């Protein structure tokens, strides 16, 4: 049986000019509203234990789809059946009250999610342990930092292994170590066989986690299938709109957000280090050196980089763990890793290098330095495009033609 079954379910929102128009509409059954369709009728069968990514530009209908499945919105047409307990991470801390203690809010938040007092009693100690609040659980929530608040809210929201987990936009909760912990919990649910719906702009995370991807646009399902195929089609679509992917278009930033941090990033070409570099296509050597610190108790982080073109599109990327390389660290968790691109293969143009410090699984981003260095590439030859592929031309020595004998394969015209 499917975990989620949608049969021609759609959502049309009604826009009332004045609140009392709804009142008269309901009483008289005459429409006094304008309608707009957020999600056209959609039929879907999502089997148990499948992890489904939902992608699309803003206004595509992603959140509406998640709300319908989560039960926080009512479909305007069709039917939706969800089998089992649903946990929706649409907004953390729904129902919490600042004046109440963490303990009271655990019960309140749990009850709002439909958990019985007995279930909350049983899970209480694990919630406190997971949220790392200790004795502060008996203090009013208003005295918590935003990180503590989010930790508690996440711990409550995910206290019970859900049959269906719905996650909107973010996988990172609270400060660094906890962000990783929350991410691990979600991955744990995946392993435990929960059906997960995951909405994100980050194609990297979607591709890494999901078994299937739905691409929505203007409330319609454009493509449904295997992640690589759907993401590729989605990226092509974005390119046709001349809109860079949201992940790559993020503003230049360099700040620590995780339990591992970038300490120093250097980008060099032919021995010259800097943030604006000139390279010769197929001749220069590009080097990227990353120094980091990390929690020595956690596995060594992975390092990734992307090179994007002037239009914001990723031309290429590299990830240390995909290449079978693990960063060596000192006992305090710090370390350095370097990657080199000999005979830089990109053709003339301007490119930007972004560097990412990721979890050991290569999905969770600890820290990033986006558009860290600008590469200005010039080339000697006349090739077109963005990359010069390694190639071999062959032209075997030709025997001179014997006079009088016509070449049968190439008749003289």
């Amino acid at each position: 049986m499917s975990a989620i079954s949608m049969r021609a379910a759609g959502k049309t929102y009604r826009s009332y000019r004045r609140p009392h128009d709804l009142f008269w509409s309901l009483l008289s059954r005459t429409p006094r509203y304008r309608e707009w369709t957020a999600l056209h009728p959609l039929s879907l069968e999502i089997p148990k234990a499948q992890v489904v990514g939902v992608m699309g530009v803003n206004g595509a209908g992603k959140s509406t789809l998640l709300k319908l499945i989560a039960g926080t919105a009512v479909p305007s047409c069709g039917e939706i059946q969800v089998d089992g307990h649903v946990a929706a991470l649409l907004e953390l801390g729904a129902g919490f009250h600042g004046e109440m203690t963490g303990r009271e809010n655990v019960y309140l938040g749990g009850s709002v999610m439909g958990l019985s007092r007995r279930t909350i009693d049983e899970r209480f100690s694990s919630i406190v342990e997971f949220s790392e609040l200790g004795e502060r659980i008996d203090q009013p929530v208003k005295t918590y930092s935003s990180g503590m608040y989010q930790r508690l809210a996440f711990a409550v929201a995910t206290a019970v292994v859900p049959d269906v987990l719905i996650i909107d936009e973010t996988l990172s909760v609270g400060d660094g170590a906890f962000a990783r912990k929350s991410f691990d919990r979600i991955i744990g649910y995946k392993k435990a066989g929960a059906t997960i719906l995951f909405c994100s702009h980050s194609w990297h995370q979607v591709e890494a986690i999901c078994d299937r991807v739905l691409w929505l646009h203007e409330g319609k399902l454009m493509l449904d299938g295997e992640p690589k195929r759907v993401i590729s089609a989605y990226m092509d679509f974005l390119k046709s709109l001349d809109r860079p992917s949201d992940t790559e278009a993020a503003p230049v930033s360099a700040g620590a957000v995780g339990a591992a941090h970038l300490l120093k990033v250097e980008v060099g070409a032919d021995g010259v280090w800097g943030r604006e570099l000139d390279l010769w296509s197929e001749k220069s050597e590009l080097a990227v050196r990353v120094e980091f610190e990390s929690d020595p108790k956690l596995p060594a982080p992975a390092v990734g980089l992307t090179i994007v073109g002037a239009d914001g599109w990723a031309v290429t990327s590299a990830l240390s763990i995909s290449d079978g390389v693990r960063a060596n660290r000192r006992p305090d968790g710090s370390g350095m890793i370097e990657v080199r691109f000999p005979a830089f293969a990109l053709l003339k143009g301007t490119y930007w290098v972004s560097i990412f410090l990721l979890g050991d699984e290569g999905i969770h981003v600890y820290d990033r330095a986006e558009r860290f260095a600008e590469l200005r590439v010039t080339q000697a030859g006349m090739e077109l495009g963005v990359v010069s592929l390694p190639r071999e031309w062959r032209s075997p020595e030709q025997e001179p033609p014997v006079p009088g004998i016509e070449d049968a394969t190439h008749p003289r015209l």
Partner: protein
Amino acid sequence: MILKRAVWFIRGIFRAFFGGLVDPFRIAVRERELLYLLIRRDFVARTSGTVIGWGWMIAQPALQVVGFWFLLELVLQVRLPGRVSYLEYYLTGILPWLMLNEILMRSVYVLDEFSPIFKKSRFPLSVLPLVPVLSAGMIHASIFALVAGALGGLADAATALALSAGMLLWLLPAAYLFSITGVMLRDFRQILPFLLNLAMYVTPIMYLPEMLPQAIKPALAFNPFADLMALIHAGLQGLSWDSGNVFRPVVLWAVLLLLSRILFRRAEPYVREML
């Protein structure tokens, strides 16, 4: 065909009526833990940061009562004809009135107040109108019973509790109706305090019905609150009442029950989008 439609219509009316009657109780039992926590949250939200904390839940109505008593008995020296003392009569009327006033006033805002909870989580919306009913009911019924007990003994305390329970039952449909109306007809929220104030003055709470001019007395038949007061005074002080005092509020209650059930169910899917 017409007969079939009539049967269908009557069946719908009955369904709506019994649904409206039974559902609040079914919800209260099913969501009792959530309801308890929401009421607790409500108390905390209303009294946080104050010196006497939860004491304000009792002190606030008590101060209102004292204020009116000071004005009417000590300053204006109002006296009632007959055997009932003014203080006793006044307290017997004003305490249930304060309960009614608080329930109706809070009902129009309750969906807004709790919207951060239900907008992004699976939440039984129909539990919310029960919050002001039970929260105000618990406080005011306790005060009413204590005062009635102090004035007339244990039996009067029990009667006060029974009368409060009856009044809460009577107010349930109004709470559902007002909660949904408060979302859709925002002007209703603005006019309601005035209407309730007006209703208090035209209801025999601070005076006996007999003290009204003869020409106005028949108008009391159009005031359902006057019927409720008559029944409360009859129950606690043995004052006169008639079948009209029962019939009229029951009819109004049935109409409100039907209306609230239909409107709440029809509007429920749109409330999240409206707020």
